[in-house]
């Protein structure tokens, strides 16, 4: 008894230490550039207000799949990288941030293949015309005519265009000669049609969010010679921001800090509400709870695996405590996302992965509670691997930019997002949990002696119970989706791919239960069917999006198709393995 308390205390201390590391901002001397304060400034992009910290991280993630840059082995924060670029420091062009992994694209741009596939803007400069030409020809084709090269070229070109647009939106046009003003104004107006960072918040002078370059241009002293009757409006915020960037470029930290404080003071006096939630979001970014939880879940899984195979209660107990410790920040981060975005937890593939992982861990904890001794760590095993896998999936889905995007009109209903989407996600989760237990059943039985008669019965009970809940949740979730459709355009059921995917999960769970009631399968057969349920669910979750049709066809990604295929093949192999005659199983008691 005493030993377990000591273990638990050690586990908790370890988890606290693990989560706090990196959450604090790096120390800055008063004479240094106050990057931390700069990271807290507001910017509006893709319809959402966010701190510059988030904007910088997302942009860097889109370009390079990482949230920081490595230069000579030292990490450079996303905000510093962004500031170096938008202020126009010459050395910023040498950051190797553009990830290009396709060899054909690389060779057509005259670049050498290199480890980590990241290239600097300066290296890309000579090839920009070639890239632009190739991208234009790819865009000119119909989607079905595009080959892999075309798609990769478009992907790279989109990164470049995005980067260029962001850079242009932070230009300082105040030194532009009068005769070029007209052309510049037209260029800026074109640019404003794209999604660019609007960094000047609404203030007493103007009620709209505006990009820096247009705001500065409006205060250009010669603007009234270009546009008749133009009222030269000097926006103090834009001026402070402009001077700030210039000071940064020339390395004048005092001036930069001074302007930054002035900017903050003006904004605080003019529109204090604009700072709401920003500091919290920066904290959320720095905490990085999801990846840390993922790491701990993996540890939970490994500990429990040994605990289960060797029947070591102590290991299982420690793993259980660790799982709960990782679950708390995971929960916190999901709530934080809801608070920041103002939407219920699941709004896109990324958040569905995070949420399904969370629910799977919760289910693992519930299994441990409900089955107590009989679970023998199975709840940890399932929660650990499912939590780790889904958070890893989420990590790879985050590469498209802001994961807290605004919702399109038809999807923008918190009621249905909170009921239909949550229920259906729970349904996915429950099917996966049953399937994961099924995998352990098959591997444990075939390759180890661990699966005795009692364990077999217990595992079956867990699978059966989870499948019941999976059927209940996926049925209700699917019907709620239909009711949403009925409420949106008067069609309860429209055979839309995502609807069909959800229906397949419902039917499969129903088949499992009926096969059991009809005595068509026993414990092992049920485990095999549960594993097959993984395939059905994965297809419904990711597969239908890859078809690119229907109302739910968001989040198309090429690599997702590949990994989905890998997953399906692996699960299919497990199903085949599960069908090996029991006399060949190591656990011979069956």
């Amino acid at each position, binding site marked *: 008894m005493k030993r377990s308390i000591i273990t638990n205390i050690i586990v908790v201390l370890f988890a606290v230490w693990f989560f706090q590391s990196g959450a604090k901002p790096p120390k800055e001397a008063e004479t240094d550039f106050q990057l931390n304060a700069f990271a807290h400034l507001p910017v509006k992009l893709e*319809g959402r207000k966010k701190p510059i910290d988030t904007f910088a991280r997302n942009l860097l993630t889109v370009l390079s799949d990482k949230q920081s840059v490595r230069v000579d082995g030292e990490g450079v924060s996303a905000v510093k990288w962004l500031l170096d670029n938008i202020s126009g420091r010459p050395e910023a062009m040498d950051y190797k941030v553009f990830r290009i992994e396709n060899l054909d694209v690389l060779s057509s741009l005259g670049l050498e293949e290199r480890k980590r596939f990241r290239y600097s803007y300066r290296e890309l400069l000579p090839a920009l015309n070639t890239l632009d030409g190739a991208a234009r020809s790819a865009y000119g084709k119909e989607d079905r005519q595009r080959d892999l090269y075309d798609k990769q070229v478009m992907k790279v070109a989109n990164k470049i265009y995005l980067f260029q647009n962001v850079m242009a939106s932070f230009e300082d046009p105040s030194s532009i000669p009068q005769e070029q003003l007209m052309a510049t104004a037209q260029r800026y107006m074109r640019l404003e049609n794209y999604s660019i960072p609007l960094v000047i918040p609404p203030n007493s002078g103007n009620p709209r969010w505006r990009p820096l370059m247009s705001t500065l241009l409006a205060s250009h002293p010669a603007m009234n010679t270009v546009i008749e009757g133009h009222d030269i409006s000097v926006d103090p915020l834009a001026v402070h921001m402009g001077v700030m960037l210039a000071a940064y470029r020339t390395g004048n930290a005092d001036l930069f800090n001074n302007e930054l404080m002035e900017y903050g003071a003006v904004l605080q006096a003019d529109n204090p509400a604009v700072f709401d939630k920003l500091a919290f979001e920066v904290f959320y970014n720095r905490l990085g709870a999801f990846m840390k939880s993922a790491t701990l879940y993996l540890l939970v899984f490994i500990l429990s695996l040994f605990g289960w195979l060797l029947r070591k209660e102590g290991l299982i107990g420690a793993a259980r405590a660790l799982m709960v410790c990782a679950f708390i920040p995971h929960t916190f981060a999901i709530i934080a996302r809801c608070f920041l975005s103002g939407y219920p937890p699941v709004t896109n593939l990324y958040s569905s992965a995070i949420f399904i992982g969370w629910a799977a861990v919760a289910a693992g904890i519930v299994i441990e509670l409900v089955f107590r001794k009989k679970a023998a760590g199975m709840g940890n095993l399932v929660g650990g691997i499912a939590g780790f896998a889904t958070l890893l999936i989420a990590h790879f889905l985050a590469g498209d930019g802001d994961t807290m995007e605004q919702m399109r009109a038809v999807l923008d209903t918190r009621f249905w997002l909170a009921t239909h989407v949550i229920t259906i996600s729970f349904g996915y989760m429950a099917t996966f949990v049953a399937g994961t237990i099924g995998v352990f059943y098959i591997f444990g039985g075939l390759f180890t002696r661990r699966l005795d008669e009692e364990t077999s019965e217990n595992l079956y009970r867990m699978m059966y119970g989870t499948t019941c809940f999976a059927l*209940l949740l996926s049925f209700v979730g699917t*019907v709620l989706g239909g009711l949403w459709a009925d409420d949106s355009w008067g069609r*309860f059921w429209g055979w839309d791919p995502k609807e069909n995917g959800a229906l397949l999960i419902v039917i499969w769970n129903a088949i499992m239960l009926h096969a059991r009631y009809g005595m068509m399968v026993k414990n092992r057969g049920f485990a095999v069917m549960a594993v097959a349920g993984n395939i059905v669910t994965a297809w419904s979750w990711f597969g239908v999006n890859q078809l690119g049709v229907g109302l739910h066809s968001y989040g198309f990604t090429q690599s997702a198709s590949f990994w989905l295929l890998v997953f399906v093949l692996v699960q299919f192999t497990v199903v085949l393995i599960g069908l090996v005659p029991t006399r060949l199983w190591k656990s011979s008691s069956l």
Partner: protein
Amino acid sequence: MMNKLIDFFLSLKLTVVLLVLSMILVFAGTLAQVDQGIWTVMDQYFRCLIARIDLHVFFPRSMDIPDVWIPFPGGFLIGWLLVINLITVHWANFRIQVGGGRKIAGILFLLLGVLVTVGVMFGWGTASVAATESDAFWRVFLRLGRGTLAAGVFYIACLLLFRKRAGMVLLHGGILFLLIGEFATALYAVEASMTIKEGETVNYIDHSQQLELSFTDTSNPEVDTVTVVPGDALKDGALIKPDGLPFDIKINHYMINSNNPKPLQGIPEPLRNRYPKYEGYGSRLYVAEQPEASGATGTRNAPAVDVELFNRATGDSLGRYILSLWFYPNFVNRSWDMPTTFNVDGKDYTAYFRFRREYLTSPGGNPYSIKLLDFVHEKYEGTQMPKDFASQILLVNEGDDVNRELRIWMNNPLRYARRTFYQSGYLPDDSGTVLQVVRNDSWMIPYLSCMIVFVGMAAQFIQSLGRYLRKP
């Protein structure tokens, strides 16, 4: 023989087999949507007895797969077999095993449940004009709440009649109800649309699946007299003599789909030489038959009809006309309006080939209309992403004393006079709105059956979970 048949339908193996078949069908029907329209897929896979599964749907589209199809049990066949299977199994295994007062009480509750269900279905507890005014979710919660009420009554009935198997019986009853509801929807639901410009008042809907030929006598400044010829009558070679019109209509050719009209001068010489000599728009524009639109391209069929009119009294030809759906303003989102006009015996006529028009009336027979006061298309700041589409409308029914300003927006339709008006689209430059108008009297069934199945399933699972937990 009869016993064998009953045994066949009594088997849970049949259930499993049918469910597996339905999975394959749904899977194929989903993959088919990559290159076929949803309506085609629905007819080919789901709303039929025998489905035709194209082999190529299972392979990447880049592979060269022979164009063969596999006959497969269709959605209706599987559905009906499942229903028979379900009823047989329940009839054989879930007999009422109670008697006396308990049985009577059970049957009374069953009747009460039916009463509540019917009441909920036909609008008990809802306003006659139902639009969202504040928070949307209460409306749905209330509907689900009414469903739960019905489910609760049914559950008590099942508990009285079937004891421990109450949940099982209830949930399957709910599934049956859901299937019946969907079957009714497939047969009876009608979808139409309504196009209104800002400031305009419209009192009719367009049935976009049906067409008609309309002739309006506009010579009387007080009233217009409209005569319509239903689309079914427009067969090649038919001679139509509508009552009330002084002329006959000869159908030269009915085109299932036609091109977007192009100026005749731009057409190559040989084609132009073969082009019939039309009066009206056909004298300046080129309209010809096109292959039927496939769903994949997202385009719609635009039928056209080539007619010749004859003065009924004299038998003289009044000219040959081409009437295309392209000329009808609601088909082109009001981008243009191209009425075909002509004069017979001193009377002016305007002709359209258009969607079948139905004038709006409430169940009491009183006509009503909708005026679009304002259309709002909001975008997220700094993006092109739509945030909201909303139509501010005025609903007027003088006969029923309704005169209300209402808002219809995404996910928040207006329900009135057994029809539901949904925000569906908008006209160029946000100058007006397109509403989807659906009439479906079984629309409450999914709400009800969802809650019935939920209550039944939850009761059953909680019961077995409790049994398991009580075991040492």
